[in-house]
């Protein structure tokens, strides 16, 4: 009877397409919005992910990674004294002004990393050598930086520009994860970062730390916090802290949440109703099947098959369209778009829910169906 069920579904072209459109639209909307949201959240954590460090130490009142609350210079030594610390190194992070050759200014995210270990350096070096940061005036710049500071014809290995009137020279081109504020990343050594930035009482943004083997980053973060009173987080904890802060302090979460909910409700309303209509209009057919000897269980299986088949196809097309959107509109990282499997699983569950609910409503209707309707005029 599976065959009969599928023919009933596909044969009723108008309603089938309507159903499919509802489920596809719903899936596409949720996946697309969810992926953009997740992309934004990834961008918001780029300040953390672009610096590879297991444990971040900061002011105890820090909310998120872009909120710099400078520490006393002694903090590095204090952290080093905590048992279980293998190494602890300073990191400078701050938004500075770079001056272009044409005299225009452009804001950059300056990152100063420990010069001897170069810990905090980016994952991927595209051109040049990151070790050359130790040479005079040296900086590394990311691709967005090249674009913003004059394009590849003006900025390449060996060219110079100015940060706060201090001349710097490009020795490496690196790949970074885009940031929320969308500033280019410029890397240099910690000492040079201090020397090119304006005088301030405190300039140490973060202390990066690594546990000795046998101590987990979580454990180390806990110890550092307990012993020094400073805020200490693993990379992941700090990332979540940042995401939480954004959700609580901006409208992003509410906006995306509303759209996703809307997608779910619209999908539910359109598909649920169309499917119910489909069943109601087919009641004489189901009645005939029941009279001929199809059990309620058999009819229920037919309904479930119909509903999940169209749900499955709608899911496939919807995810496909959203992915296509991500590949075109979001290509090259121009748009935050990150399709993750938990999102896809979530949407699948939502769709299962939509299909199950409309099936159950239809099945209840069928269970009550009097087969005698088939003998009536």
């Amino acid at each position, binding site marked *: *009877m599976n*065959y*009969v069920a599928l*023919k*009933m579904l*596909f*044969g*009723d072209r108008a309603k089938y397409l309507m159903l499919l459109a509802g489920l596809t639209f719903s899936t596409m909307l949720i996946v697309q919005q969810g992926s953009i949201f997740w992309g934004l959240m990834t961008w918001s954590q780029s300040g953390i992910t672009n610096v590879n460090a297991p444990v971040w130490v900061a002011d105890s009142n820090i909310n998120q990674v872009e909120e710099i609350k400078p520490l006393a210079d002694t903090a590095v030594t204090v952290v080093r004294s905590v048992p279980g610390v293998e190494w602890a190194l300073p990191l400078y992070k701050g938004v500075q002004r770079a001056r272009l050759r044409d005299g225009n200014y452009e804001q950059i995210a300056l990152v100063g990393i420990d010069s001897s270990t170069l810990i905090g350096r980016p994952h991927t070096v595209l051109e040049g050598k990151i070790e050359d940061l130790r040479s005079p005036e040296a900086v590394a710049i990311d691709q967005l930086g090249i674009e913003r500071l004059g394009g590849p014809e003006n900025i390449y290995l060996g060219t110079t520009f100015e940060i706060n009137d201090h001349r710097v020279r490009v020795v490496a081109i690196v790949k970074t994860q885009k940031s929320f504020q969308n500033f280019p990343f410029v890397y240099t050594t910690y000492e040079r970062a201090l020397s090119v930035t304006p005088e301030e009482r405190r300039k140490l943004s973060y202390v990066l730390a690594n546990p000795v083997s046998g101590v987990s980053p979580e454990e180390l973060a806990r110890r550092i916090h307990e012993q020094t009173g400073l805020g200490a987080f693993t990379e992941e904890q700090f990332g979540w802290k940042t995401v939480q802060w954004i959700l609580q302090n901006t409208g992003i979460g509410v906006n995306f949440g509303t759209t996703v909910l809307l997608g779910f409700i619209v999908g539910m309303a359109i598909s649920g109703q169309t499917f119910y209509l489909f069943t109601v209009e087919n009641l*004489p*057919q189901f*009645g*005939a*099947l*029941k*009279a*001929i*000897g*199809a*059990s*309620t269980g*058999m009819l229920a299986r037919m309904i479930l098959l119909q509903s999940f088949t169209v749900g499955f196809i709608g899911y496939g097309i919807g995810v496909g369209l959203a992915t296509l959107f991500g590949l075109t509109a979001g290509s090259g990282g121009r748009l935050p778009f990150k399709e993750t499997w938990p999102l896809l699983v979530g949407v699948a569950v939502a769709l299962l829910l939509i299909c199950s609910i409309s099936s159950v409503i239809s099945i209840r209707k069928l269970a009550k169906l*009097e*087969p*005698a309707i*088939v*003998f*009536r*005029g």
Partner: protein
Amino acid sequence: MSQNPVSTFDNDSAHWLVQARGVTKSFGEGAIRIPVLKGVDLDVARGEVLLLVGPSGSGKTTLLSVIAGILESDEGEVRILGESIPELSASDKTKFRRDHLGFIFQQYHLLPTLTAVENAAVPLLIRGVSKHDALAQAEAVLGNMGMGERLAALPTRLSGGEQQRVAIARALVGNPKLLLCDEPTASLDGETGHRIVQQLHDVGKQPDRAVIIVTHDTRIFEFGDRIVHMEDGRVDQIQHGQEEPG
């Protein structure tokens, strides 16, 4: 004193395929309650073709529905093949229909998205016969009815008579013990009607089988072993047809 209807069964289920006693059925509630069956007794022998005739609204379709167990009677007994239908659970009634009954509905109730041959195969598919075998058997039955050229047509592309023949093929395909037909020849021309009823008749004449045909069509009276008249919810009179029951 009213007689207990069950006591009037002669309990000879080797002879009778259908036995109904004192069947009543009303529709509606309270003041608008309309009695439709007012105590019907009906016996159908094995190998018998019974015609049920009567004016519109006399309760013929209602009686068929009660016999088939797709409508609950208010009172009375119905036995088919010795099985007491009202006493079966809903799911056992469904199974009983699947295994022993064939139906031709007044409004054929073909599935509009299935082709002629697929529609005719439905009872076999419900029984769990493989799609391949079910279609092959349905094709054979439709072929016998002169529908061999129209196997792949959807019901909307079929004439009324062709739809009716698909409905009849669907009723015959599972070799049911009891065939219940509501106006099976209404849309057929004289010649086709004749041929179809001949076929229904042949089914009924097989041992251990029976056919009940509700009809207004005087042209087919000659095929009935007996003609039962219904009037106002009662079986009025029984008139013998040309043949004696087998």
